[in-house]
């Protein structure tokens, strides 16, 4: 296959562009979107590339329709993606829940900007973390990835498709205006060197009868996509293993929703990804994700120069969340600092994870600018003095 951009070499591109190129290399053949700052560049790149690689790129009437279209495309057998920012992401909550309930593999990119509402369209924020995890109604689980660099945006887009296909679930790539608009050198591998995952299809007619049944004991049913003669019925109503609506049976509801939650929860080890930096002998830990983690690395070095033994835990996946790992970190340090571009979101999960074993302090910043390393250093030192 021929690609409309250079492969097997590095290129100097924006985060948004990297996401689009990665999606195509991941096998995405359907993109639906609606213009929004700062995510439009993803759409524009898809619009440029998709017709050349025989994929579809279509502009829908709104974000409700964009996510609906990619869910439809996924049931028709395509790997599908949409991208948006806060205001559009809010609109997508309805059908994000539908994708969770119907176990539809899709990738949704949220290039975060400042909210609430229209907020600061061109400036970055991390205000959608809780919305990405809990924004749609009802009990559920899904996967949320948080890139900090353009290279990570590229790599995690491919991973997002692989996880979506493997676990038959929506995956959110939660990035922000900084990463989306920043230009960095990205290593784009040869397509044959990229490991791709494809959804499990029913092995036979019998398996296809249970599109929502745990027939392999791994909590992930094979997906009988449309047009193959399986005659699958898919509904957002509570359904039994065969997909039949069963809306007043408590046991069927419990079984379905618990399986949807557990297929993520029990595969935490496979899904969760993090990096540690100078954490082995640290007295204080910084837990960070996304763009802020880059300032946090620098802050750790600066703190060490000033005699504070600091370390960093950089989260590449913020849901599922590894509460146990945070507790282990908390046992070894006396304080955990969480710099976030919001007024405290992931902080609450870290605090729950720390379980009282260490003090957890939030370093909030809103208004559109990333924390400088100096700001993180200052906040840590101020708190360390006050003990």
């Amino acid at each position: 296959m021929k690609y409309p951009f250079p492969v097997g070499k590095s290129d100097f591109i924006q985060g948004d562009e990297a996401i689009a190129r990665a999606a195509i290399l991941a096998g995405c053949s359907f993109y639906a979107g609606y213009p929004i700052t700062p995510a439009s560049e993803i759409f524009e790149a898809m619009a440029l590339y998709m017709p050349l690689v025989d994929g579809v790129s279509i502009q829908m009437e709104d974000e409700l329709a964009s996510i609906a279209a990619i869910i439809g495309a996924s049931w028709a057998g395509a790997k599908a993606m949409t991208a948006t920012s806060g205001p559009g992401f809010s609109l997508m909550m309805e059908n994000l829940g539908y994708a969770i309930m119907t176990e539809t593999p899709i990738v949704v990119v949220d290039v975060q900007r400042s909210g609430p509402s229209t907020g600061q369209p061109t400036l970055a924020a991390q205000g959608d973390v809780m919305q990405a995890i809990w924004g749609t109604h009802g009990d559920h689980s899904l996967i949320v990835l948080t890139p900090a660099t353009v290279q990570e945006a590229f790599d995690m887009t491919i991973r997002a498709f692989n996880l979506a296909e493997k676990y038959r679930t929506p995956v959110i790539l939660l990035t922000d205006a900084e990463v989306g608009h920043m230009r960095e050198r990205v290593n784009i591998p040869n397509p044959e060197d990229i490991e791709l995952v494809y959804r499990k299809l029913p092995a036979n007619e019998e398996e296809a009868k249970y599109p929502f049944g745990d027939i392999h004991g791994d909590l992930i049913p094979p997906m009988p996509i449309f047009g193959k003669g399986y005659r699958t019925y898919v509904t957002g109503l509570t359904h039994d293993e065969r997909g039949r609506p069963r809306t007043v049976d408590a046991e069927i509801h419990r079984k379905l929703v618990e399986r949807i939650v557990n297929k993520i929860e029990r595969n935490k080890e496979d899904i969760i990804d993090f990096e540690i930096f100078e954490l082995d002998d640290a007295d204080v830990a910084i837990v960070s994700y996304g763009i802020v983690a880059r300032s946090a690395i620098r802050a750790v070095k600066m703190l060490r120069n000033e005699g504070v033994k600091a370390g960093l835990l950089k989260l590449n996946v913020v849901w599922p969340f590894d509460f146990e790992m945070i507790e282990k970190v908390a046992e070894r340090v006396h304080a955990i600092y969480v710099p976030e571009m919001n007024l405290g979101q992931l902080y609450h999960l870290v605090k729950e994870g720390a379980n009282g074993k260490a003090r957890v302090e939030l370093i909030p910043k809103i208004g559109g600018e990333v924390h400088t390393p100096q700001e993180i250093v200052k906040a840590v030192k101020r708190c360390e003095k006050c003990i």
Partner: protein
Amino acid sequence: MYLKVSYEIRDKYLRKDMLPTIFCPGCGIGSVLQYTLRAIDELGWSKEEVVWVSGIGCSSRVPGYVDFDGLHTTHGRALAFATGIKMANPNLKVIAFMGDGDTAAIGGNHFIHAIRRNLDITVILINNFTYGMTGGQVAPTTLKGLRGTTAPYGSFENPFDIAELAVAAGANYVARWTVFNYIQGINSIKKALQKRGFSLVEFLSPCPISFGRRNRMKTAPELIRWYNKITVPISKAKNMSPEELKDKIVIGEFVDRDRPSLDEEYEEYKKRAKEMMGWEE
């Protein structure tokens, strides 16, 4: 026209394990479902090539009863989902079963944009002037003065004419009948299914339980008589004055044309893109 006995259609196309349906006595949805299945049967379409899509509401439960691939989606969004299905696999034939609230209220924007794009799909629309599933609230189709639980003194809003809306938005085929025009209904569905691009067959359909009871028409026969009174065939309507057409609903074939469909246009677009980029595979 030769009509097969209905149990042949039932046995061939319905999922027996999903029956009985949720439909109330006197409801028109079952009849329209039968017309649609008869049309598919007469065209000889296989179950593998057809996908049924729906949103939320009584009529949206239909894809669950038929033995085809089916996507029962969120309220109003059926056509947005259908756009993804059709464009990702243009070989699939897509039928959307929708209600009037689903289509014209919460899904109004998706409806006009799917038509504007000329998405290759057949919409079978059940218009019963009410939200039946939630207990008889007024809809954007409820005629002025008719009652619903959310306008207990009679609707004070202007209703949509969905068929006219579809014509104006650019549909390739639009017809409207009452549920009791079964020969015309089946023929229109057959035409609609064979049509490339957007096709709509709207059925005025009785809802005695949620709509009729609140409007002094407690049974389906009373609603039939009312439909007979308020509907005018399009041939006759052409010679009627606006005053005479006031409070009347026109039935018949509104438009039958052949503009290129979205998937056909996209094929051309891909060719254009490759040409413009000097792309050789």
